[in-house]
């Protein structure tokens, strides 16, 4: 599916928040590495997807009616075999069907843990589109260690913002940890900037977490608001 189609379709069905698979497809199209995300429309399909992705997997509800998936009992982590996937599918769908007849599940791999980072894009009332970068997960709120740059960003802006956060010490290999792939992070930041520039219908991008590894980086739970 083309990027523009994803957004048109979502808008046509009255959605501002893209589904995880749609957000993933948009990001992938501009070259941002995202964890695979498959749709399971039926139990067997979910199982098939899990086998192809490889265990362990994560099942999440995919429904317009469910915004806070975890609160709605719509997230099952660490599913290690076919039985677990089938059981999780039924649990999620039993609840979701009441809310939304069109509910599905998404199947994603359990991404190997890396340094948790955040890359985001938002529209500031003063500066317009800005890209954010910082330590992800709980650190976002606790440390408030985030750098901002105005779209469009140059490569030097991306590097500068990676180096400017206090947490950059962690990225460069703190104690015995290997340094993470700074180039991969820079690429993600620049591509988020480009996507924001090229697709004005996108209002917000939230890649939290991005797992940074010694080689490469991976956006795991992308959220895109249009």
């Amino acid at each position, binding site marked *: 599916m083309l990027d523009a189609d994803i957004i048109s379709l979502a808008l046509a069905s009255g959605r501002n928040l893209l589904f995880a698979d749609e957000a993933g497809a948009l990001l992938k199209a501009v070259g941002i590495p995202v964890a695979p995300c498959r749709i399971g429309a039926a139990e067997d399909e979910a199982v098939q997807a899990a086998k192809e992705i490889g265990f362990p997997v994560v099942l999440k509800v995919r429904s317009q009616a469910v915004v806070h998936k975890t609160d709605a009992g719509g997230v099952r982590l660490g599913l290690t075999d076919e039985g677990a996937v089938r059981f999780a599918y039924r649990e999620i769908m039993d609840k979701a069907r009441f809310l939304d007849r069109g509910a599905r599940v998404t199947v994603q791999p359990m991404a190997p843990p890396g340094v948790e980072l955040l890359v985001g894009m938002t529209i*500031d009332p*003063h*500066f317009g589109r*800005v890209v954010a970068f910082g330590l992800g997960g709980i650190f976002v709120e606790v440390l408030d260690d985030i750098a*901002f740059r105005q779209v469009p960003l140059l490569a030097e802006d991306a590097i500068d913002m990676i180096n400017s956060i206090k947490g950059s010490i962690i990225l460069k290999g703190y104690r015995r940890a290997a340094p993470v792939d700074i180039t991969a992070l820079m690429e993600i930041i620049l591509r988020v900037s480009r996507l924001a520039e090229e697709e004005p219908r996108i209002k917000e991008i939230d890649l939290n977490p991005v797992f940074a590894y010694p080689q490469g980086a991976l956006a795991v739970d992308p959220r895109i608001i249009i």
Partner: protein
Amino acid sequence: MTQISPEGLHSVFYPERVAVIGITDTPERVGYNILRSILYGGFAGKVYPVHPRHEQVLGCKVYKSLDDLPEPVDMAVICLNQYATVEAVESCGCSGVKGVVCNAGGYSETGEDGDELEKRLIAAAEKYGLPIIGPNTLGIINNDANFYSTFYPMRIPAGKVSVVSQSGGVGLTIINLALDEGIGINKFIGVGNCSNLDFADCLDYLENDDSTAVIGVYMEGTRDAGRFVRTAGRVARKKPVVVYKAGRIEGADNYTQTHTGSSAGSFKLYRDILHQHGIFTVNSPSELVAACKALELLPLPGGNRVGILTHTAGPGVVMIDHLAQAGCIIPPLHEETIARVKGIIGADNPPVVLKNPLDAAGLGFSRPTYGGLAEAMLADDHVDLLLAVYCLHETWELPAAELLDAYKKYKKPLIVNFIGNWLGCRADRDFLQSAGIPLFTAPEKTAVAAAALVHYGTKKLEGGASYA
């Protein structure tokens, strides 16, 4: 909102004929003082005071209305109340005036009704393509044409620093700090509510104003921060721009909106994005003046390596705290420099540790010794910029002449930090600054001045700035 062209502003800053509308003969009123300011400032053009009921004010004939003037004017200063100002702008437009300063407050900063009134003011001006300075402003000064159009009559030395300020009070603070620091102001623009002339328009104008070499900005908020930072970034490639952004706390809008109707926005975003566009930012009016003074007087250093010469260690410690944060390096001295220093103070002189900062202790009291050490450090090719600290003393003189000699010999940027007060250092300040060497009396100012020079000096190396 139509964008104001820099050409349109030329008539405001370099008028030949000016109308002051709303002149009164009461010395505590704005109108009276605008006229006094223009006269006292030595404006060479013609001034036409306008008021329907006065005959003569401050020795000038007062005209009943714009239509009564013997000739058309280039610009008008409107010192009427907020309602009458709107009508005056309309009649200015009709009579071919090219730009106006509107002093009155009572617009968007006061709430909904005021906001509505400001919209009417803007609409009246834009019908005729008139730039409005203000409303809610102290006014403007163009020292390059002796045109002082604020309600604080003054005469200040001309200089190459121009200031754009959203506040009259902070603007006056900056002007007076500049006087204390011994530098002049070229243009002062009180943008006030920025109704149809925003910071970016002022920067556009000053970019091509040949008499302006450095631009200082005091900002609380702007309607189009995106355009402001892009413009500032572009202008800074041609001449240094120094920005002091206030309204930093969460909830700052409480204070900025009732001041100039502007929203302060997120300071974090301002800080990061000004940095992205290569703008040097400061944290107070006195830092703003210190940075502008150094940028006006000195050529830019070739790099970020700062040498410090002193005979008292503490000021160097204070400076380095600031310098390190600004990305400056305190390099080790060259071996040749160490040898040269030993030659000056004697090889076995015990109390002196030979490194950078070079603390000559008591030996540095001697002016010839101090001058020799300054030369040795300026000659060091590890040093891009020298900061020289010396304490004012009742018994001996400051080594101003020695420092000037050293500066002339090596043509490397030198900032002098005499520890004293203006009473004691004034003659030395004037002596050094007339030769292009800035003198400060506080280490934190010296450090900010050095950081500003290094900022634009190293930007130049990266191919960003190239100042003629």
